[in-house]
Structure formats: C-alpha cells, structure tokens
C-alpha cells in the first residue's frame, strides 16, 4: 500500500466513522418506518469500517472514531435527521470515489460497491425527506 493509497483508505475510514456517528444521532428522530432501512444502512457502514480497518492495519495504525462529531446543523426533528443522513452518505460516496482510481480488482470492486450503496442510500433519504432532485448526476463529486 503506497502512502497515497493509505491516505485514500484513511479518508474512507474517517467517512465511515462519521456516517456511523450520524446514524446514531439521527436514529432517535426518525419515524418508525424509517428505522429498519436506517438500521440496515448503518450495519453496512459498520461492515465497511471493519473492512477498512483490516486493510489499513497492514500499513498503518487505523484511526479510531472521534468521540463525537459536530453536526453541520442541529438535529431536532425527522427532517433534520434525514438531512444529516444525506450529508453523511454524500461524504461517504466522495471518500470511496477517491479509492476507485487507486485500486484494482477486488479492492476496486469494494470501493465501487460502497460508492453505489452510498448514492442509492442518499437517494432513499432524499425521497423520504422530500428533497429534490432525488439523485445526483455524479455521486461522490465535490459539488
């Protein structure tokens, strides 16, 4: 793993840590019907975090999650909770897109699957939040 690879995977790990935190913050504000999809999405983020920790451990000491992350806006109701999850999925997509070009084979497929999952999950939350458009032309691009 080159230093560049390590940086890209570390950024993906940071995004996954942040996403897991976001799901924890948002969970209490979601409707009952939102909770199962949120639980499944959070579980996928935990799986990806664990996969990243395993990969990074061969090259460096993977950074643990921060004790807390300051949310970009107060999470006070379902709408702001959904917006936080949209921001978290978009940030995750961005980080994984940074891995795709550095990786090949199985490693690239891991990053690609993560990018696709984040884009689809962000679309689900946009739809439930009534945010339009519900899709982005280039998921994972800084816009």
């Amino acid at each position, binding site marked *: 793993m*080159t230093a*560049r690879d390590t*940086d*890209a995977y570390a*950024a993906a790990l*940071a*995004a996954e840590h*942040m996403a897991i935190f*976001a799901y924890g*913050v948002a969970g*209490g*504000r979601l409707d009952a019907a939102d909770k199962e999809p949120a639980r499944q999405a959070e579980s996928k983020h935990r799986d990806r975090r664990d996969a990243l920790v395993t990969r990074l451990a061969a090259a460096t000491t993977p950074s643990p999650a*921060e*004790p*807390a*992350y*300051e*949310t*970009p806006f*107060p*999470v*006070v109701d379902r709408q702001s909770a959904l917006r936080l999850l949209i*921001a978290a999925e*978009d*940030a995750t*997509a*961005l*980080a994984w*897109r*940074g*891995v*795709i*070009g*550095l990786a*090949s084979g199985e490693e*690239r*497929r891991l*990053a*690609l699957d993560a*990018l*696709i999952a*984040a*884009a*689809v999950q*962000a*679309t*689900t939350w946009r*739809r439930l939040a009534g945010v*339009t*458009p*519900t*899709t*982005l*032309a*280039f*998921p*994972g*691009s*800084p816009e």
Partner: protein
Amino acid sequence: MRSAPTPAPGPTRRVFLRTALGLAGVGALGALAGCEVLGGGELPPPPDELAGFITATVALGDRYDAVIKALPDLANRLEPIRNAHRAHVTALANAIGGPVPTPATGRQPAPGSSAEVLAALAEAERAARDEAIDACMAGSARLAPLLGAIAAARASHAEVVAA
C-alpha cells in the same frame, strides 16, 4: 435546541462539515494520484476506449426524451434523470478528448401505460448500471472514478424512476 452530543474538546475534534470538505480534497488528490501512480507505464487511452459506452449513454438519454415527449406528465420526474445522462455523455467525451455526440431526435417511445414505460426505464437503468460497473472495473485508473460515479447515478435512477 441541539440534540447532537457536545463534541469532545481538544485539537483532534472534527467538525462534521469540515471533515466532508477535507475529504473533497483527498478525493481530488486521489484523482490526481490515479494519473501519476502508473507513471509512464500507461499511455493515454485510445479515443475509442469508451466509444460504445458513450453511444449507449446517448441512446439512454434519447429514450428519456421520447418518453417525456409522449407522456409530458412525467417530465418533472424524468427530466433531471435525462439531464444526468446528457451530463455523463459530455463528461465521458471530455475525458477521452472526443467530440460530444448530439442526441438523436424523433425516436419513438415504446408503447404502454405510464407504469409500464417507467418499469421499462427502471430495467434499462439497471442494465446500464451493470454496463457501467463492467466499464469501471476494466477502466484505466484515470477513467474508473468517472465510470464508477456513472454506475452509482444509474443505480440511484433505478430506485426512483418507477417509485
């Protein structure tokens, strides 16, 4: 009232948004690194590397145009997706240094009810997603991130087009 936990004090505290912005920088670095990491070993892609993929992407946008023309009630839902396919064509053409192909006009939409037409579009998006996944996996380090984003966009289209 803020329900977010009080952030831990100290220099390592990360601000959510700032982290996201920081990741944008890393993403850009990754894109650059993709060009450099192979050094002189990789020649620029031949202009036809993605020619078939681009042609299929143009056709997908044309298909939306035809449906929007025949079923204008669906325009609000479908125009952003059509525009995304057009943006993909432009980005792909720019990435390989080729001309941006012009959309075809006058294509006839498949007959059927709105529900049937939307179900067919969702199926087309899933097939197009799989083509983009294959292209991303086979693509050069330079083109793979764009192809991956296109695969992700198509996957999300499939979720909403028939929803």
